[in-house]
Each structure stands twice: as structure tokens, then as C-alpha cells.
């Protein structure tokens, strides 16, 4: 299988007035293409930091992260942004849809960032198809404020996959939703993950959601839980 993401002894600390706060303390794991994994743990255990590191939004204090075999964090800012737009899809607890844009425009934003000039028509067609696919076909020209919470989150998921990222990262994607909507959103997420063949990491407090994923990584105080060790594959695998 193709390696999608590898964390090697990754540490992350933040300087504060009281001294550095270590959030991640040298964690290592690997995720294959098409593989899905839940990251759980109590608040403040470093789940979101892990996700942001995977999304190249933050840089590790120590260790290395490779995405699709590339050390993306070493890229200059512009290339890193382009890399992120093409290779990483992000879904947040809050949908973060931009209120001034329609659903279609929101979904197309990553294509603009990626500069997919040649397949603009394809992107729009794909966006419409995906929105149709998630049941928002009739709402393409609506703005976020005109949609329900579940609809917004579905649109946010479509936005995350529009560029066919190899890595789909979700931070509490159902955290703001009621149980029924959360279930539906989780279904959608897993369906799209399956269809798009991207690696998926879902950071969640929801054991129900975590249980639907084949792998689970639990973080405690910035360390992987020994009860659920994830063996580091041998080099060259």
C-alpha cells in the first residue's frame, strides 16, 4: 500500500510566559492511502495540534512529518499553500463556510486556491455533482446562513474533497450537530472517503464516530496511549 502520512517522533511545544508547554511528545504513526483513523483523547491532549500538523498548518518542534512521502513542512510558504490545497482536505467542527459566498462558491474555493485553471469547468461540474450527491443540489446558490447546521457541514465536507485530496482531516466534524444529523454527516464522510480513496483522520470526542473507523489512536497528554499501540511499520514497507 501507498503511505499517505507518516509521523516520526513528532513533538510540538508552545512557548508561554511560564515556559514551553509540550503538547505532543514525540509521537509516531503511519497512515496508508485509503485508510481511516480516529484520534481520540481528552481535551488538551493534543488532538487538534496533531491534526494541524498533519494539515501543514503548523510546524513540528521536533521529528518529521511526510505526506505522500513528501516533507511538506520544508516547502516555502507559497508552495506549501499550494500543496495543502491539492493534497489536504479539512473539515472543522464549525463549518467555516464563508457567509458572503454561495454554496457552490464555497465549495469551489479550494480550486481557486489550487489554481486549477485548466479544469475550471470540470471543477464546477464536480462541485455541482458532489453537492447533488450530498443532497444539496437545490441549494447551490444559497448562502450558508440559509442552510441548516447539517447542510452546512455537508457542504464543508464537499469543500474538503473537491480537489481530491490524498489526506482528509476532520476536527470534531459532528461536534456541533445533534445525534441524528451527526450520524448522517458521519455516513457521508465515510462514504466520500471510500469513494475518493483518501486517507482519513477524524479527531473526535465521539466514541460512536470513532468506533466506526477501523483504526483508533488515543492521545493522552501528548503521548500515544500504550493500550492502543500503533506499531511503526518497518522502513521500506
Amino acid at each position, binding site marked *: 500500500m501507498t503511505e499517505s502520512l507518516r509521523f516520526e517522533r513528532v513533538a510540538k511545544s508552545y512557548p508561554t510566559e511560564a515556559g514551553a508547554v509540550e503538547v505532543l511528545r514525540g509521537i509516531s504513526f503511519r497512515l496508508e492511502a485509503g485508510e481511516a483513523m480516529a484520534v481520540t483523547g481528552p481535551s488538551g491532549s493534543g488532538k487538534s495540534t496533531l491534526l494541524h500538523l498533519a494539515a501543514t498548518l503548523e510546524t513540528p518542534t521536533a521529528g518529521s512529518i511526510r505526506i505522500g512521502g513528501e516533507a511538506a513542512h520544508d516547502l516555502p510558504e507559497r508552495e506549501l*499553500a499550494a500543496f495543502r490545497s491539492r493534497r489536504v482536505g479539512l473539515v472543522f467542527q464549525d463549518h467555516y463556510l*464563508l457567509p458572503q*459566498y454561495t454554496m457552490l462558491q464555497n465549495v469551489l474555493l479550494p480550486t481557486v*486556491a489550487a489554481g486549477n485553471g485548466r479544469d475550471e469547468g470540470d471543477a464546477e461540474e464536480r462541485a455541482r455533482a458532489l453537492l447533488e450527491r450530498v443532497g444539496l443540489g437545490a441549494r447551490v446558490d444559497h448562502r450558508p*446562513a*440559509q442552510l441548516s447546521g447539517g447542510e452546512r457541514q455537508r457542504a464543508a465536507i464537499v469543500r474538503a474533497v473537491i480537489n481530491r485530496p490524498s489526506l482528509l482531516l476532520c476536527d470534531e466534524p459532528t461536534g456541533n450537530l445533534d445525534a441524528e444529523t451527526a450520524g448522517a454527516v458521519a455516513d457521508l464522510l465515510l462514504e466520500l472517503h471510500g469513494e475518493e480513496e483518501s486517507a482519513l483522520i477524524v479527531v473526535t470526542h465521539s466514541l460512536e464516530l470513532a468506533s466506526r473507523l477501523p483504526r483508533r489512536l488515543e492521545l493522552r497528554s501528548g503521548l500515544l496511549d500504550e493500550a492502543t499501540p500503533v506499531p511503526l511499520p518497518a522502513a521500506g514497507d
Partner: protein
Amino acid sequence: MAAARPGGPLPSLRHYWRANVAVVLTAAVAASVLTGALMVGDSVRGSLRDLTLDRLGGIDHALLGAGFFREDLRDELAADEEFAARFGPVSAAILMQGSVVEPESGRRAARVNVQGIDAGFVAFFPDAAAGLDLSRREGQFFASLAVNRSLAEALAVEAGDSVVLYLERPSEAPRASLMGEKDPEDQLESVRLSVSSVLDDEGPGRFQLAPHQSQPLVGYVRLRDLQRELDRRGMANALLVGERAAAGSGVAADPDSAALDLERRIRSHAEAGDFSLAFDGAEDHLRVTTSQIVFSEELAGAVEALARDRGAEAVGVSTYLANRTAAENGGAAPYSTIAALDTGRAGELGALRLAAGAPAPALGPGEALVNTFLAEDLGVGAGDRLSIDYFVVGDREQLVERTVEATVAGVVEMTGWAADRSMTPDFPGVADADNMSDWDPTFPVDLSRIRDRDEAYWDEYRGTPKLFVDLDFGAGLWSSRFGHLTSFRLLPGDGASPDELGAVLEAEAPARIALHAAGLAVEPVKATGLRGATGATDFGGLFVGFSLFLIVSAALLVGLFFRLGTESRANEMGLLLALGHGVRRVRRRFLLEGALLGGAGVLLGLGGAVLYAGAMMAALRTLWRSAVGSSHLYLHVEPLTLALGGAGSLLVVLFAVRGAVGRLAGVSPIRLLRGETVEQPAAVAAPRPRARWTGIVAGALALALLGGSAAAPASAAAYLFFSGGACLLVAGLAAFVLWLRRRPEAPLRGWSLRAGSSMAAANASLNPGRSLLCAALVASASFVIVAVGAYGLRFGEETRDLDSGAGGFDLVAESDVSILADMTSVDGRYELGFGRDASDLVGRSEIVAFRTVPGDDISCLNLFQPERPRLLGAPPEFVERGGFRFQSVVDVAGEEALGREDAPPASRPDRPSSGDPGTPWRLLEQDLGPGVVPAIGDFNSVMWILHSGLGQGIEVETERGETIELRLVGLLRKSVFQSELVISEANLARHFPSRTGASYFLLRTEPDEQDRTMQELERTLSGFGFDAVPTAQRLQAFQAVENTYLGTFQTLGGLGLLLGTLGLSVVLLRNLLERRGELATMQAIGFWRRALAWLVVAENSLLLAAGVAVGAASALVAVSPHLLGGHALVPWLSLALTLLLVLAAGTLASLAAVRRVTREDLLPALRGG
């Protein structure tokens, strides 16, 4: 404990101190500018008041005479207890205007106020006693002249230097009358004087009665010296009087009543001679004569009324001179006096008898009686025909010889009035001649025609009339505007003797004759000056207008900062509402905070107002001096203005605060708790009807105003256009907001300009209120810059064009002494002393000479409110010539005719050409009925200084004391006639008969001879104080005022723009901070920071571009009449550059905000979610 109660505003004010400081500071700016602008008005008024008090010193009132009266009147008044009870120092003076020449360098100064002062004058300026000491120093040969520093500098002289002073020699009879002195050489008096001291340009060094802020040239001579030089010993033409009540404060309490009181005191001491009257008792009648030789109509009427009231009969006599009297038989006699009177009444009285013994008959027109001497000389008797040659004063005040035929009705014996030498007044140059051949009269005589027989008659009878005609017949022949009666014979009634009657009338005359009839006037000069010091222009209003953009910017910022502050506390507001506080209570709480902050800002701003006004006054004294013409303008702080300005500022601030709180209080508590500040995101909200209706109403108003201007009078059209443009600005901004809300959605297809623009527009629509604020600030700034810039003309007019503001004339000149000689004729120039070459040079110019009535400068160069406008009399040839550019004229029906600047020339009634029968100047010759005189003035002066308009009237008092209305029948546009009103020469002569000769000239020289002609005129006519300047220079001086005001407007508008840019930057920063989550999302999606920055800058540029486009387009519409007028020289390039600067400033502001945000770590925003 009170401290535990959470309701008070102080904890909040303390906690949010950063945001609150911004509100306080911007409120302080608004209060500083608004109050400071009002204080500029106070300061200008206060400075003019100071100038008035300074230039007049202790002088409160003045008795001013067109002629001279006894100097002793001063001492008589001083000794009068009633006078002394109310009035203080009194001084006799001769006040004149003249020119001074420094003979060695040839430097000359015209329009010098020359004062002949007595020892008492110093009491008005006690601090300047040393400088006003005019006694001769040891070894000083010439009389002393104290000059002020301005005059000393103009002549480059200092104490000890000698100069020559040129003055107009007084003339008893009006110069234009037959008996008036017309010879230019005899018209001027030159006096060699020694400069004794140089006075500072203040106090007596600024003395002038006319209210004007400009520094006059002043010279003082001892009264006695001036009397001697002018041959008016013991005479003065002014009494200067101080009032006791004014001594402390400098201002009299009731100046008008004091002036009346003073007039009563003067009348009680004045003698008939002070009213130019003389009473001489004869055997059977009282003879009344005037030192003016000819009685004016008013004076004659006054004498008749005096006589009538005393039961005396007045027989008027008009004695004139016949140049030649010829009979049909060939006999002729030169220079005989001819008396016109009621010969029938004289016959009845036995004063005129025929040689045959019968009483003289009443004569009809064309009949004459001759005395026995003339009958014998000519060999004529009853029934013979006579031909009589005599001079009359022509239209242009030239002497014209006329001839009248008369039939001898009889021969009178030389007894009674026929032998009375006093029938003939003392003609100057004639009366005191021993022989006829010694005559040096005021009219041309051919002495070779005088025969021995004539000399013999002169020896025996002097000027005794040889001919008699009927009074009406005689008056019809030689009466002029100065009158015709030369004496009265009063026949006492009730058995009184002539001497008794004389004594009574002599006592009554000063009390009963109107002062103006004798050319006298008592004027409360200080009160008049102080009244004028309220100013022709309300500088307070003007500077509020100039600062309006700055005030509005500051007010918007107050609202903005307060709104941002309250929005950041939205959750606090939501919490309070959720806890059960009523909306009103919450709103009140925030309003109270706003009021406290605003109040603190306003208090702080009052201090700033003093600084702002001080800075404005300093700028008026220096940078903007060409608008005010004085460096004596200083800050004056009036507590009332501070209070009013403070209250006004607080209202503005509270209005802004109320808007901010009201908007937030309308949001539901739930949203507020979430930190949301709008009920529904604007991006999904339906367009508010308010924006739509604002757009519709403003657009409709704009159309109505612009359309209405086509039919409106020219004077109103500019305002309508400007208002229309302003409405268009509002409509444009409303349309922009609507577009933001309803812009077409463009799909995002890749990273392209179109996609970027679409995203920028979408981003701008996120908060239309703030976007509108930004666009409105920029639009207003652009509107001001373009509108003002388009009006701010550089002077580049071709003055030689007939329809220019100079009417095709190159030079405009004025003289201190009226010039009677006709400069357009070779003879006239010869009389004036032009050499042959100079005469040829001047003769090649087209010259128009205007009579003038002195008065106040009504141009924008005079800050004082003029009370009596200066008048020019346009001669007929000028009226026929036409020229100049008219803003608007009335048509025959008196309605305003189109004089619009954008009307095509062919259809314009205000485009005269030479000989054009339609020249509006002909309106001056319309008969508008009794007491109404058509007048033409410059639009700017009439509108802004006189606060009048086309078709309206301005009341002025004539020399006869009548009030006439000057009806404005035409308004010129940016002409050289901005200091005066123009009426026809005929009307000027009718109502101001004593104004003779010309003292205002327009000249059109040969193209390359302007400088030489100007130099030659000034050199030859230096004694007249002739001062010529190119018309372009005069127009530039007027234009400079306008441009300075526009510059002021632009400068203060620029400050407003600066403030606006600061606001823009704050708005943008606030927007970006609020949108950190959005930016972080976009970053997470894959947008790199520079792309985000680009998007923000594009969004801001969209607002800037929209603002500039709406503002500039509206402004261009607003000033389109001016642009289409054909005379606009719009600095397009600098305008474009300025607008680019606005864009650049706005973009820089956005870059600063973008830089601040994009440098920040945006991830916390994502975590926050």
C-alpha cells in the same frame, strides 16, 4: 455598597479604556473643528473691531464737509457746557486724499490720506504724541509731514527727507460749472514738506475714516500749514469728536443719539457761513448769496423756505456771463453779465425801471431788457434783435458756446437793481481784477476783444448786469445740475427791516437748513465702523463650511469607534438582555457611556478649538492673506461661541453614538451572546427598503434639480447644479450599496482577475454598512476635490477680449484728484501736460473715463460690511461700446433673462459686441421711475458682499439727502467692477451733481504699448495721484481671494480626508480582525498569505474606486455649467493626480491593515471554532 453594584458606567469606561480613548479623541477632533470654525468668525469680527478702534483712537463722531467751515466751531463747541457734558476732545482737521512724490528718486505714492491736524488731534491718540509733533525743528525749512511706516517704505524716505505733496486745490464753485476751476494746473496744489517722523502702522498710523482692513498710507501736516497752502485760513472740512461715555470701553453706548445730540450742538454754534450762506442787508431788501457762487437746488429751497416762514418774499436772481452780445446792426459787446429774474416783480418793486420811467415789464421767453449802457453801445432799442453767445457745460463737462436770439423789450435805466454790482457774484479770477484785461477766469476769454469802452464800464460798474431776461428763460439757457440761482433778494414783510430779517435768518439758518444741503454730515464714524466690523462675510459660517468634511469625518469616526467598541461588547449586551434587562435600559446604559465619552471629548475639544482657530487665524494672516488683505487678524475667544460650539459638537457626537447603539440594540440577545452584531448577515438579507428609497429619492431629486436648473435664473442655476450633484452623490452611493447586495454571482473559476474581483465584491458585501462608510468617505473627498478643483481657476483670461472680465481693456486706473480735461482729445492731453510723444502714445489708446461717487469698497477684498457702495458713472460711449461678460441681466419686463454660461453665444443676450444694440449696458439708461436708478454690479460682490441679487434694490442717499434705490439690472461675472456699482453717467450727475471730472479710467492700449502708456500716464499725471494697473492684475487680485478660499476648502477637506483615511484603516482592520476565522479557513484551504492580502486589497480598492467614481462623476455634474461656460481652466492633470493620491492613500491604509493581520497567527481563530 455602591461599588458592588454593577450598573454604573465607570467600570466599563475603565475596562475598555483603549476603545474609549479613541472615541474621546475623535469627539475632541469634531468639537475642535466645529467650535474652532465658529471661533474663526469671532476672531475675524473681533480683529476688525480692534482695527476699527485702533484706526479711530478716541474719535467717535465726525462732522464732515464737502466744503469748508470755520475752524472756530471747534473752540465754540469745546466751550459749550452741554457739549462738554457728553463729548470729550474735539479737533478741527482738513482731511484730503493726495499723492506724495519723493523728488530725487521719483518714487510716488497715490491714495495717501492727508490730514491737516490741530494740536487737539493728539488727544485721540495720546500714545503717539511724539510722532504727531509737527512743529518745525531748528533749521527745518519746509513744513512738517509725519508719515506712517507704509508710506515711508513706499517712498523710501525717513525723517529729515523732503517730499512733495500734491492735493486738489479747493474750488468754491463746482469745477464742472462755468465758475469752477478747470485748468489742470490750477486744479492742483503742490507742497514741499519735510518728513518729521515715521509713525508705526497702528493708531494714528492707520487712521482713516473709511472702514477697510487694508493698511492705508497716512500723512499728517499741521492744520495751519495746510490751510495756508490751500488758501483756506481758519477753515476746516472735518471736526473730529470723542464721546465721554466711550472713553473707558472705547465704544459709545448709543452712538446714534449721540450723533443727533452732536448735530444739535453743532447747529447751535454754526453760523450761516458754515452753511455757505451770506446775508447782506441793503436799503430795501436782504441779499443772500452763497460761497458756492451758485445755489444748489436744496440750498435755494432752504433759503426760500426760511424767507417764506418769516413772511419775506424771495426774488431769485441768476446772473451769468454772455461772451458776446451782438445786434443786427453789426454792433457787438464782449463779456457782459446777464441777469435772469422776475423782471415784472422787480418792476413792481421799483427796482428795475425803463429809461422812460415806467416799471420794467414782465418778460416772456426770448425777450430781454438792456441797460442804457449796452443800448447805447450796440445802438439798439425796443424791438431790436440781439444775438447772445454764452457758454454752457456740455455732457462731458466741456464748455460749449451757444447762441440765443432775443428781442429787446426795453431799455432799463441804471438805477436800483440795474445799478447793483452785487447782482453779479464774485466770479473767481474776475471779481478782484482791476481791469478786464486782468481777468483770469475759469473759462476761456479772448482778452483782445475787450475795448476801452468795456474797461470804462468795468471801472464804473464792475460786473453790473447789462442784460436782463426772465428767470425761467435764463434758467432754461444756462441752468446746470449745480443749479442756476446766484443770489436772492429777500423783501421783508411785517415792516421788518432787511437787517432785522438778516439777523433772524442768520440765526435760524444753521438750525433749520439740512446739513446735506450745505454738504455737511455728522457721522458716528466709530459706530459705523464697528457695525461694518461684523463683516461682509460670515467667516464663522464660511469656515464651518470649509471644515464640514473634516467635521463629518470626525463625527463618522466617533460613531465608528463607538460602534466598534460596543460591537466588541455585543455579548455583554446580549447577556444583560438575557438577564432580563430591558432593551431601553441597556440602550440607555450604552448611551450614557457614549454621552460621558462624548462629553469628555467635547471638553477636550474646546481646548483644541482654540488651537484650531488659532491655526486658522495664523493661516489667514500668512498663507491665505490674499483672501483677507490684512495681517492684523488675531484669535478672539468668545465664551458664548465656546458654549454653542460645545453644545453643537455634543449633539453631533450624541447623534453618532445613538446611531451606533441603536443599531446594536436591535439585534436579538441570542445573536449578541454569540458575539454577532447583526440580526441577519447582510449577505443574505434582503436589500433594505431604506437604501432603495434613499437611492430613488436622491436620484429623483438630482434629476429634478438638474432639470430645473435649465429654466432657473443664472444666479440660481449654479446652486441647483451643485445641489443636484450632491444628490447624485447620495444616489450613487445608494446604488453602490444595492449593487453590493444584489451583484450577479460569478462562479469561481480558478485564480483569475475576474474571480478575484468577484471575491472582493462578495467580501465587500459582507458588511455593507461599513463598506458604504468607506466608499462614502472617499466619495465625499473626491466630490470636494473635483468640485473645488474645477472651480479653482488659474487666471489665464485674455483681457483684450471684449467679452472678458476686463471688457477688452488693458489698464484700469484711478486718480486721487478728478480729471476734468478730456484725455481722449489732443487739447485735453495738452492741458494735462502731456508732451507730444506721450500725447500721441496715450492718444492711440481707447480711453473711457468714469465719474465716481466715493464709497465703500464692495469687493471681497474688503472684510468690512460696506454701508455705502462706491459708484461709477458709465459714460454714454461706454454704454454703446458694450463688452464684459454678464452672469445675468433682467429683461424689459424686469424678469431675469437667461444669462446662462452654457447658453450658446449667439443666443445670449449678455454677449455684446461693439455697437450691438442688445448690449446689457443699455439697461443703465432705462427709466425705472422716480427714485429708482438702474445699476450693474459684479455677481460676486452683489451676492456675497452686499447680500443682494438681480432685480433687487440697494438704497443709497443722494447728495440732496434723498434715498434712491439702485436697482440691479445686470450682474457681471468676474469683472474688474467688483469694488463698485455702475450706474449711468447721467444718473450719477443727476443725483450726485457735485461729482465732477473723472477719477476712474479704463484703457485699451495698442498691444505692445501697455507698459509705456501706463508709465507715461503715471508720470505726467502724478500730481493727480494717477495710478494705473493692468486689468489682468486687478482681476488676479480678485481671483486670488476666490482661489484662496477654494484652497482653504481643499486644505481642510484634505485634513478631513486624512481623518477619513484613518477611519478607513480602522474599519478595515476591524473587518479583518472580525474575519480572522474566514482568513484562517482560507489559509487552511490552501490560499497563501499573499493571495489573501491581494484579496483584501482588491476589496478595499473596489470600495475606493467606487467612492472615487461616484464622487468624481457627481462633482463633474455639479460643476458642469462652469465647465461648459467656456472659461474654465480645469487643472485636469492635477485633479487626476489628486484622485490617484486618494486611491493610493486608501490602498496604503489597507496595506497597513492587511500587514497587521496576515502577520498574525491565524490558527487560534480555527481553534476558537
